[in-house]
């Protein structure tokens, strides 16, 4: 069988997926991208889902990056088959995937598989986090970028990292009154990382100009402050924020309140590893990204024909994702005989250098924004930890007191992780609890189960 006819499937049409497909296309290799959304681009770059004449709230840099990614696809359309509004919900046999479009199931075989399923926000519980109006920052971004709606009229942002100033500007430009931005890490930490930031001057400049925009518009930006709790009768009406020390422990004696109708919370990301888990790939614990698949040099997983690229392999953002997608594609192209070893080596080296520059840049931010465990003190006994199963912190505490040392036992003892979302939201907190207790090495992974998102019994009819 000609290697050119081998089926390359790419799950996730974001920066990594599209870059991989475009790279394969350059060497004449066709691929098929499966994506759950109605447009390509992934959470970051899919952009508006409805028609709009203009995008006043999204800066030029974003719009340029988005166009460049869409162009990567358009310029290679004839070699890239796209299946949208389709989720992968599990594996099928040794080399297949089960797909769902919410109406029926189908299956798809692959010779090579690239999993570029991205990441989602890390959910951090605190009293009131389940109130309507409390959203993860990624969710806020999706509302303004893709939904073109303001999720609230008066909002605060609490979190850490380069997204904070970016989203604050986007919200302000979209007409939201931004009450304040609360960055958990202190300004002095940022100054130390300035050297690393120089690796990517354009983005840094962008960063600086965002800060001056916020200053110009009197949007207070607080370093070393974070969320304590959210309150409200039916929805969020008020938040309490306080200074965080270097362990991100809130100093309640200096707490302040703010009235608003919505907040964005963003304290980091976790890799989306349900499919990688179901494929039985080897994973390793990552404090930053939660579990990530164990990879060899060219994005190859522990399964010979399965690659992982982008944030699913560890959070590096879309620039890193693009390089990783390329590297995976180059490796496949070599294996399929579409390029020779010399071309593979030189192109891969170039991509690896690009990836290293991204890593250096990110390292600056990541060190600055490294999550501290002081936030584990925020929930009180009655704070719901697993929203799907209504499991409170007191129940988690009781299980730890009884001596659970692994996540599956915690799940069984409390039912945390046994709900509709299969622990996607609450597992981050649970892993941090094990880390705090010194059991991160042996706690194991919360098992993803088929189907990774609920399907109806009707969909199981033949």
């Amino acid at each position, binding site marked *: 069988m000609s290697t050119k006819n081998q089926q390359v499937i790419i799950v996730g049409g974001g920066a990594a997926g599209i870059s991989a497909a475009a790279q394969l296309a350059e060497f004449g290799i066709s691929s098929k991208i499966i994506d*759950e959304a*109605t447009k390509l681009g992934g*959470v970051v770059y899919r952009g508006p*889902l*409805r*028609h*709009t*004449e*203009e*995008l*006043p*709230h999204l800066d030029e840099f974003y719009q340029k990056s988005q166009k460049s990614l869409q162009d990567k696809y358009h310029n290679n359309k004839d070699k890239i088959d796209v299946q949208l509004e389709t989720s992968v919900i599990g594996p099928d046999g040794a080399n297949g995937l089960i797909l769902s479009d*919410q109406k029926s199931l189908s299956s798809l075989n692959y010779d090579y598989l690239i999993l570029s399923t991205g990441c*989602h*926000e890390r*959910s951090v519980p605190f009293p009131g986090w*389940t*109130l*309507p*109006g*409390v*959203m*993860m920052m*990624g*969710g*806020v*971004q*999706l*509302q*303004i970028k*893709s*939904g*073109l*709606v*303001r*999720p*609230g*009229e008066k909002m605060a942002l609490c979190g850490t990292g380069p997204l904070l100033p970016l989203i604050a500007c986007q919200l302000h430009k*979209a*007409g939201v009154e931004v009450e304040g931005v609360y960055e958990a890490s202190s300004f002095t930490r940022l100054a130390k990382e300035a050297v690393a930031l120089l690796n990517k001057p354009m983005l840094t400049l962008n960063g600086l100009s965002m800060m001056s925009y916020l200053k110009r518009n009197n949007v207070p930006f607080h370093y070393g402050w974070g969320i304590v709790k959210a309150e409200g009768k*039916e*929805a969020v009406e008020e938040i309490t924020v306080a200074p965080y020390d270097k362990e991100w422990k809130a100093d309640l004696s200096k707490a302040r309140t703010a009235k608003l*109708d*919505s907040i964005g919370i963003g304290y980091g990301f976790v890799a989306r590893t349900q499919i990688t888990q179901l494929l039985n790939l080897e994973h390793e614990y990552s404090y930053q990204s939660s579990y990530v698949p164990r990879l060899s040099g060219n994005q190859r997983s522990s399964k010979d024909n399965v690659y992982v690229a982008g944030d699913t392999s560890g959070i590096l953002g879309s620039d890193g994702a693009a390089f990783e997608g390329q590297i995976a594609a180059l490796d496949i192209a070599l294996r399929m005989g579409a390029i020779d070893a010399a071309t593979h080596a030189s192109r891969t080296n170039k991509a690896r250098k690009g990836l290293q520059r991204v890593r250096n840049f990110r390292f600056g931010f990541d060190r600055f924004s490294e999550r501290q465990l002081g936030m584990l003190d925020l929930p009180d006994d009655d704070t*719901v930890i697993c*929203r*799907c199963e*209504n499991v409170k912190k007191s129940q988690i505490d009781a299980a730890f007191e009884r001596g659970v040392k692994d996540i599956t036992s915690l799940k069984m003892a409390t039912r945390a992780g046994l*709900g*509709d*979302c299969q622990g*996607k*939201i609450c597992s981050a907190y649970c892993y941090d609890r094990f880390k705090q207790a010194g059991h991160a090495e042996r706690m194991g992974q919360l098992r993803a189960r088929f189907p990774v*998102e*609920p399907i109806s019994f009707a969909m199981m009819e033949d």
Partner: protein
Amino acid sequence: MLNRKADITPIGESQIQIYIDDEPVNVVEGETVLSAIHAVQKNQIMQNDYKANLGAYCGMGICHSCLVNIDGKYKQRSCKTLIRDGMRVTTMSNRFNDMGIKDNQPLVTSADFEEKVASSDQPESEDSNVN
């Protein structure tokens, strides 16, 4: 008619409508049910099986906190479902509440159940012109 107050850019001419809790609202092709809900400044979207009121949290289909009843079907993720002309969306809709029973209470008969589900399809009143 529900007014869209939170659009960042105008939606332009709209030929299509959906109903949110029996109130019509203009919508545009391509948008999700969630953006229509947010456009009319609603953020309380569902009541879960434990009587907690929830709203959108992740915006990308993994938190299961933005679930609405669409045309009689429970637990549809509003962030992932595209609007369709004439769609009937009910917020705060929970199967347990609609069946009027709690866990472990005596069984309702299937006749009661089907009647309740069927009745949730119909608008409460003929007069749905509220501005």
